[in-house]
């Protein structure tokens, strides 16, 4: 099943390249829908929900001399992200029908190649496949930005490529070192299996070595997330990418970073994580506030949403490094929610841009009268993104904050963060409400302002077309479903999260007992 998920999009690439240009979008649409169907079938057949077990496994012999065997498989966390990916892809394809008008076969080919790579990352059970796919996601995105992007696309694509490529090379060096260190412990037998290497990293490395490993992983994945101060590629890449590119970037590619932190850094270097979590949390909080403040002064709507990703992903990181079940579950839920709501916002801005050819809030405004349906969706997704209770954003944001709050010395869960972290990060929620609502106020409501020569209604109706509504409705449905019933994700992943955290119990228990002795309370 895992192989099918990775190979189907690749087969789709071949089909798209061989089909005539006007059929490309149909072929791509069908492929992504079939992949979505397969992933649903895989999820239904998966017996690891609520358990920490792996399923859908398979393996393939590769460079055996160097210990390299390709292994695939999924646990509940990776399957959630697989579903997010396969769910967003058909929408991304559908959303590009009118916005991309040239070099169609290449465009849809790259999109499908990107899907294969992203699924490969989430389904990898060995470091080599993980790294190959992690790295290969750059190529399609590089071309999508560089060919189909906005005016500044050349700079954006190269900056995106160089930042992430450099970061992941350092991660690769760390992986190789880890594999070598494991081979030393195992009498020269090489392996790149994630499970075996995690075991070795926990038991075989001392705190200093784990610290170096943490640093290298933080550089690679931190660039991808992105964590302040290595976030500067993101606003540029998101702004210049075509709509579907921004959606995939925000929806899935950023999650590769957080997934990497969850899958590698947390289980592999617990001692170092406990030592450095406060620092990383501070970086996350700086990202939250700094991103939010920049959003406040943006006049470019797309850039505003891009910076809001920097801010939102800060919460995700904060949840991860709270090191308790609430935080991790909240963080995983946040990955999904951010993909849905920010993806939808990029779609909406793309739809506006297609009609008015501007993203400048000073040039366009008061669109509610002309595009009521668009305005409804805009307000809906902004509220989801702000964290209105009842919609999806609220649950995960709240879980991350409360997890950080509780992760203090005195909290219910022993941890290394505390109320101050949560209190300061919570300012980000207020800022988010301000900048997003200001944006809505200016472009949706207020006096009507239209750039000269627009709207461009050659291909598009004044308000949203049926196709565009079809793109947005599934996203909106899931925003409500996950807002009301977040348990479907939280319960499904709770056992896997508990397994990840098991290694922290002794360490944090010690830390706590060292600090407050007999005051230990609450269930870890």
């Amino acid at each position, binding site marked *: 099943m895992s192989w099918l998920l990775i190979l189907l999009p690749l087969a789709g690439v071949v089909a798209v390249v061989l089909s005539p240009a006007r059929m490309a979008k149909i072929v791509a649409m069908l492929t992504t829908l079939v992949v979505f169907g397969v992933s649903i079938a895989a999820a239904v057949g998966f017996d690891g929900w609520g358990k920490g077990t792996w399923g859908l496994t398979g393996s393939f012999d590769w*460079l055996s001399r160097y210990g390299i065997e390709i292994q695939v498989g999924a646990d509940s966390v990776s399957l959630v992200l697989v579903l997010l990916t396969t769910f967003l892809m058909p929408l991304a394809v559908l959303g590009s029908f009118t916005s991309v008008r040239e070099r169609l076969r290449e465009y849809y080919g790259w999109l499908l190649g990107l899907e294969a790579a992203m699924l490969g990352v989430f389904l990898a059970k060995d470091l080599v496949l993980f790294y*190959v796919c992690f790295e290969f996601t750059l190529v399609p995105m*590089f071309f999508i930005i560089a*060919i189909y992007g906005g005016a500044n696309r050349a700079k954006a694509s190269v900056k995106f490529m160089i930042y992430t490529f450099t970061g992941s090379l350092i991660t690769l060096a760390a992986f190789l070192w880890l594999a070598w260190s494991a081979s030393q412990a195992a009498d020269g037998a*090489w392996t790149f299996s994630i499970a075996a290497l995690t075991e070795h990293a926990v038991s075989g490395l001392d705190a200093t070595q784990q610290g170096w490993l943490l640093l290298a992983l933080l550089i690679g994945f931190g660039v991808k997330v992105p964590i302040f101060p290595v976030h500067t590629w993101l606003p540029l890449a998101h702004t210049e990418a075509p709509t579907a590119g921004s959606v995939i970037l925000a929806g899935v590619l950023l999650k590769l970073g957080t997934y990497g932190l969850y899958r590698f850094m947390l289980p592999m270097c617990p001692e170092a994580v406990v030592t450095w979590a406060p620092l990383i949390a501070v970086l996350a909080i700086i990202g939250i506030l700094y991103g939010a403040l920049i959003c406040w002064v943006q006049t470019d709507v797309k850039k505003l949403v891009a910076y809001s990703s920097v801010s939102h992903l800060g919460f995700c990181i904060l949840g991860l490094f709270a090191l308790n079940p609430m935080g991790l579950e909240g963080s995983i839920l946040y990955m999904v929610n951010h993909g849905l709501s920010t993806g939808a916002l990029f779609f909406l801005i793309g739809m506006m841009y297609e009609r008015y050819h501007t993203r400048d809030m000073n040039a366009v405004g008061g669109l509610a009268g002309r595009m009521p349906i668009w305005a409804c969706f805009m307000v809906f997704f902004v509220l989801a993104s702000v964290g209105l209770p009842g919609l999806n954003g609220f649950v995960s944001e709240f879980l991350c904050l409360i997890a950080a709050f509780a992760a203090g010395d005195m909290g219910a869960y022993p941890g290394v963060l505390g109320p101050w972290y949560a209190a300061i990060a919570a300012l980000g929620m207020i800022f988010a409400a301000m900048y997003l609502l200001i944006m809505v106020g200016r472009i949706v409501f207020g006096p009507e302002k239209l750039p000269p020569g627009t709207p461009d209604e050659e291909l598009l109706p004044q308000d949203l077309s049926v196709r565009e509504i079809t793109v947005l409705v599934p996203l909106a449905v899931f925003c409500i479903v996950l807002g009301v019933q977040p348990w479907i994700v939280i319960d499904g992943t709770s056992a896997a999260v508990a397994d990840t955290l098991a290694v922290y119990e002794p360490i944090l228990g010690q830390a706590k007992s060292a600090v407050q002795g007999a005051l230990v309370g609450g269930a870890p």
Partner: protein
Amino acid sequence: MTEKLIFVIPEVILLAGVVAVAILGLVRSASLRSKVPWVAMLFITAAGVSIPFVFTDARIAESTLLLPGLGRPMGLVSCVVALCLVLMTVGRIDRRYERAIAAGRMPFDPLRSNRGEYYVFFLLSLAGLMLTCTASDLIWLFLALELTSLPTYVMVAMSRGSKRAQEAAMKYFYLGAMSAAMFLYGFALLYGATGTLELSAMRDVLAAQAADGGIGILAVVGMMLALLGIGFKLAAAPMHLYAGDVYEGAAVHVTAVLGFVPKAAGAVAFMLLLSTIGWFDGTPLPLPILIMLWVMAVLTMTLGNIGALLQRSVKRMFAYSSIAHSGYILVGIIAGPGLGFNAVVLYLFVYGLASTGAFAVLASLQRADREIEAVEDLAGLRQKHPGISAAMAITSGSLLGFPPLLGFWGKLALFVAGVASGHVVLVIIAGVNSAISAWYYLRLVGLPLMSEPTERSETIDRFDAPWARIAAIGLAASMVVLPIFLAGIQDETAVERPAVENNAVSMQDSSVQDEAAGS
């Protein structure tokens, strides 16, 4: 003695090819003359096919050569890459002259025809490379290295009519002669220090010295001189300075040869020489030599990549990038036998195909019957020549080492070997260098595929003969397809045959553990 004779059968086949090609190149009939490259390929194929029969596992196991496992994988790699190198030259050598003859403007004059000669020199150089792999003593090694290099001096000089080619050949020749003098001096000192020319005997003598209180200074100095001199073949710093001028001055098909044949010979010579002085019984390399190799590797990678960043001429850019690749190869050499040498041979294969592919791309383009020069000439290539520009992008991506292309796996093997031998810092430096190289390789991906054509690049045309194009696109396809067959490729390029392999690995590990214990 019979063993030596059997092991040179592939080279004998190549020499027979030399004779056949030399004669065929002078035939009056134009259609027969045009078959010369195909005949050369035939003989290369025959040599390649003979290799598995010559280097059987039994013969390798009995051999007294220093690295008996080297001949087979290197021979196969050399033959495969050589076939591609010849394929891209079909219809190139002497093409203006042949055109003039066909149009009846000139008579056929054997003295003016270069066609046969080019392939004669190429086959000789290839034979030199393969002889290097089976070298049993210093004299043989010296002669084989010179047999590799001498024909390439002539190939550069006669590759095109312009003065630049001749200037390049002069520089190449004089600097090459200086480097030969250097490593010959080194060889002499090694002989003085050990009293033998046989590489295997030399290893035993040095092992005895090492057990008896350390390898003598004479041998260490001799080895350092020899390595520095042979560094010229690898284009390794500080002997890399010729590369820019020579690569740019030579015609592109000759540049492609320079990018692989001498480099491979140099890498093989490095492996052979270093195996005499280190790694026996788990002994590490003497510290001065290790330091020198480290410095060489770091300088070579860094200067190569930074140099490539600064170039505007696409051939110079490839010249400097090939210097950088020598630096990566040195990482594998430092890693030593077992994983390290396996990775070096695998990398030579991967790099040879990718670099030949990149040069084949350049060879398949022309402007008014001349080669293209500036990187900007590639701008917007995609609109007129989609296949060629895709080949450029894929071979550049492979040279950059981007997964999942073939180049990535070669680099991964090198890095694994480097880390396994305990040189983590060196591997990190190599990783940073890969990141630097992304800047200029991305230009080669981006310009053809994404830029708009400029006025200058509009005038770029396809080369008349299709073979360079076919080679370029075929090699680019192989970058995508060959990773599927990596399991088989790694076995074929392993320096030790499977039976002996385990010993090498355990020896490798024990040396690592010794090092770890020492530190």
